[in-house]
């Protein structure tokens, strides 16, 4: 049996407190312990971005993060981003532009895109492409996803 450690953190704004094995990944904690299955397991090696979450406002690959390292921090998953009205236009743009096909990459894509737009609300095509380079999609060919994010960035530009 692996050594357990009690940790406390906020998950999508709610205080959580639980015991996790020291070597467990943050992704396994979210999916298998907390039943938050929005965050996906793609490669398990930091290569595909399906497991992207926000920790203290920075996106990370939860599949290579130690769950114990969530202790004392602010964790936000796709469930939190999806519930945030601020990102409704992003979700709608992805649907409108056909940026979702099988949908497996979508949670990670949305979390990363929200982060890219938070850092750079007027991101152009190039910046969006660079920002999403850690997220693989096997279906769409990326263009539709990038167009969707660009449409949101373009819209935000109109608002002073």
């Amino acid at each position: 049996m692996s050594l357990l450690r009690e940790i406390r953190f906020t998950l999508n704004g709610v205080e959580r407190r639980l015991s996790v094995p020291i070597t467990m990944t943050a992704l396994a904690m979210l999916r298998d312990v907390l039943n938050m299955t929005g965050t996906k397991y793609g490669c398990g090696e930091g290569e595909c971005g399906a497991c992207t979450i926000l920790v203290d406002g920075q996106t990370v690959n939860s599949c290579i993060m130690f769950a114990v390292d969530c202790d004392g921090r602010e964790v936000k998953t796709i469930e939190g981003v999806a519930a945030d009205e601020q990102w409704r236009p992003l979700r709608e743009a992805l649907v409108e532009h056909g940026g979702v096909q099988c949908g497996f990459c979508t949670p990670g894509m949305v979390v990363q895109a929200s982060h890219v737009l938070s850092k750079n609300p007027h991101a152009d095509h190039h910046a969006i492409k660079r920002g999403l380079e850690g997220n693989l999609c096997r279906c769409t060919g990326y263009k539709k996803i990038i167009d969707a994010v660009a449409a949101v960035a373009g819209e935000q530009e109109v608002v002073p």
Partner: protein
Amino acid sequence: MSAIERYELPDTVEQAAEILRGGDVTVLAGGTDLMPQMQAGRVAFGKVLMNVRRCAGLAGIAVEAGRIRIGALTTITDLLEHDLIRRHLPVLSDAADKFASGQIRNMGTVGGNICNASPAGDTLVPLLVLDAEVELVSKPDGHLAIRQLPLRDFFSGPGRTARRPDELLTAVLVPMPPPGFRAGFAKLGIRPALDISIVSVAVGGVVADGTIAGARVAFGAVGPRPLRGTGTEAALEGQPLAQALIEAAACTARDEVTPIDDLRATAWYRREMIHSLTKKVLTDVAAA
């Protein structure tokens, strides 16, 4: 499966050094090397896992006595975005820009990149050209002992360094480059993002009236550790940075490296690519 008996979360460097003194400690920073290595069964963890995230004094970038002090916990994203780095050490922010993906850059630290000691580590090659030193802290006999070591003497092989098991890497110290200093970095991967360097090259030096002085060259992924290209440096030193010199230096670079065949590339290909990248970086440095 896990043999870890204790998890530690020190608040200070002193506490961390005390824990390290106890022996058999694995240091955890961003975990982007440790977690995949653990899952692949490629790393044997010590009895103690010590997460240094809360350790005061390991974060931040500041100018200190004519050098830029980059704390061990500085993330690759910090290197990319921090004003001091962009202004004084642009070759380092450029290397950060070519590093993995946004998510990995947010997690991975400079201290982790250095201590992991991959011959392909992307911050290591520019740091070698910048004549960086590492700061190592231990507590051998109840007192904190701090030593500084040139980065070029730090690496001894893949994943092996001069860091003693009781030492914590606290910072990397980079001398403020002299006026007229220019540097460049190039990395070859199969795609721009998320690729380990097949080879990489950094070059630096003071360019005045078209002549290069204090030339520094470093190569990644062509040997068991990232290394300085002393032959290429000698070929460049004090010479006018013209087309003929650039071609000659690129040939010297190709001939002085001794890469191996592995799953990413053959030795022959690596040598040819060292030639191309050295030429490219020197051309950029000459034109800057």
